[in-house]
């Protein structure tokens, strides 16, 4: 690739005080892609170092959540699950949700955790909160294998709409990265963030994963548009829809045919996507605005 340094035109960096809206240097991000790869690799590698079960945790955690939710919310409380067996219903929500929760938690800590690096070396700072958002896909992929096993167990064939899953994961990724970079920047100045985030994530999960949108619609009426401002509701509902829409009418539970909405819930998607895009823009904007002082105060 680059043989001798002298053949290449010298790169010129201009260092000046930044003012106004700071642009994201896309070209620079591209130049640093190798380092980004290394940072993601480091995150994945050290996540399960010196653990007995290693990467099995990526499967065990959603498995336990799934069992508890099924027993509690379906067996005991008899919440609606759109006619889906509890394990399928909850795991379909937990997969994207756990991706989001782990990304946002790690991302909000990323600047503080990487403080020694931030004060000693230059790299595009946005890569710090972006790294956990990329690394969390590894856990997602492992947990997805469990989902495949479950569908096999229930004798379900994947439908064509599974191809839409990346769209919803992209939405989750955008929302996580936007919120994560905002919280990461805030955390540099105010360490309260690390107390707020776990609590926020927990509340947010109950708002998102437990009930299908059909039940929310029935209960809330026009207020459902407030509910729909949660981009993760769109992601979770969308994931369930994409995974199971081809099963409509099939009786997986005795006497209860699957009743996933045949068409996507557009109100949820449009509002959720708009909010996710706004979160992404606001997160990056705030991060870039704070960026110039990170190394001085972290």
């Amino acid at each position, binding site marked *: *690739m*680059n043989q001798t*340094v002298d053949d290449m035109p*010298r*790169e*010129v*960096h*201009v*260092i*000046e*005080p*930044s003012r106004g809206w700071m642009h994201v240097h896309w070209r620079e991000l591209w130049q640093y892609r*190798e*380092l980004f790869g*290394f940072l993601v690799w*480091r995150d994945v*590698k*050290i996540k399960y*170092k*010196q653990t007995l079960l290693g990467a099995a945790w990526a499967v065990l955690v959603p498995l336990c959540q799934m069992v508890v939710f099924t027993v509690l919310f379906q067996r005991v409380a008899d919440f609606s699950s759109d006619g889906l067996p509890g394990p399928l219903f909850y795991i379909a929500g937990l997969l994207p949700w756990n991706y989001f929760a782990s990304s946002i938690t790690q991302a909000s800590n990323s600047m503080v955790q990487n403080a*020694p*690096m*931030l*004060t*000693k*070396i*230059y*790299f595009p700072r946005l890569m710090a909160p972006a790294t956990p958002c990329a690394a969390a896909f590894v856990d997602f992929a492992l947990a997805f294998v469990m989902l495949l096993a479950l569908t096999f167990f229930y004798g379900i064939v994947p439908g064509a709409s599974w191809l839409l899953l990346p769209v919803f994961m992209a939405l989750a990724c955008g929302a996580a990265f936007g919120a994560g970079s905002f919280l990461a920047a805030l955390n*540099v*100045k*105010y*360490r*309260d963030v690390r107390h707020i985030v776990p609590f926020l994530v927990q509340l947010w999960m109950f708002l998102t994963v437990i009930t299908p949108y059909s039940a929310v619609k029935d209960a809330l009426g026009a207020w459902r548009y407030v509910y729909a401002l949660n981009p993760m509701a769109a992601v979770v509902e969308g994931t369930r829809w994409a995974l199971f829409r081809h099963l409509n009418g099939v009786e997986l539970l005795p006497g209860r045919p699957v009743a996933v909405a045949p068409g996507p819930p557009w109100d949820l998607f449009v509002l959720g996507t708009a909010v996710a895009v706004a979160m992404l823009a606001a997160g990056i904007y705030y991060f870039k605005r704070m960026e*110039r*002082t990170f*190394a*001085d*105060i*972290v």
Partner: protein
Amino acid sequence: MRNPQQWELMSTDKIAIQVRGLGKRYRLGETHEVYRTFRDTLATLPAWLRNTSRERRAAKAGGHDPETPPGTFWALRGIDLDVHEGDVLGIVGRNGAGKSTLLKILARITEPTRGRAEIHGRIGSLLEVGTGFHLELSGRENIFLSGAILGMRKAEIRRKFEAIVDFAGVDEFLDTPVKRYSNGMRVRLAFAVAAHLEPEILIVDEVLSVGDAEFQKKCVGKMKDVAGGGRTVLFVSHNMQAVKALCESGILLERGRIVQRGPIADVVEAYLARATAVEPGTPIPPEFHRRYPCDLEVFRVDVLNRHGEPAGFVLMEEPFGLRLHCRARRSRPDYTVNVQFRRDDGLVLGTIGTSYVLDRLEMRDGGVYALTARLKNVFSPGQYSMDVRVAAGPEEIDFVEGIPLTVAPVTAGDELPQREGVVQLRSEWSLEEEDADGAPQGGP
């Protein structure tokens, strides 16, 4: 002031770094106070409102510099600098003179407040050995990770892998997690990676001061290779021998400004001349303060003999005292003053201070105080230096470096011989006879 065009005409070489009017302003406390919580912010809000309104009035009356709002200071100001390709430039100055700030701006770690710098070529910075090391990862993994963080390409690291492992001498432990390495091995590996960085411009801060003497020699040798290879190097160090050995030219920074530039020998000489100018019992000139004026200014330090009288030196093993004369420019209930004793190579021998003993010092605006400390003298005869650190609450507000302290040997005729070592340890001994296997004689 020379104008920029003239600078460029003067040299035929290509410019590597061009700096014009560079300045960096910090908010007081920003560099030291670690972080805040919302509660801290809320708690300081009333004081902040009070202070700013008072300061605003003071600024109106006293004609404050509008460039330096109250509560801020310039760590670096009006820096003009041209570095040509292949130059090896030493940057010297006392602590807080702005050396590290300058390097951090050029390495793009922090942004300047004013001015502009242009950097032609790939830049690599080495502000600390072991940046990006992760203790859980193996030596092999860390070589790749640290290399990538320092700016090497994967292919480049692969090419240099053998050389790095050779230089560090850790080949047997490549697959052991770095947390099981000894401290020395970790430093060697970290430096080995850094030493194989081959940017066009290399920025180095104090990294040679790690490891044992032998390894340090190896490092200086490697640095010489880098410098001799036609690369541009900016080098910061307190070690004047290393600076002289590596650099051709240099700049001397003092309180954020360049006060001398030219051949390295002259710059080092100027630095040493300034470094020893404060004497006990004489007023401390403004340039010896990290920040001046500041809320609590130590303007003179007296060394006291055992009778509490000002003296030029103290005697070995005799108790002595320090009297710090200070002037408060703002009432605060929480000043602290600490004094650190150092040997000429930087080794800290000990620290005394009000933060260890007294409650915080309450001083009123405009008050002049004498703060006196008495202590046992354990130092061996020789030359030491004292650094005075002044803090208000959690923030360090001033730092005076390098006040000499002479400990004189006790004159002949006295019974006490001088013992070997940095400190004079006093001990009592006794002698009793034992039987062959080490039990006290006459035992049961």
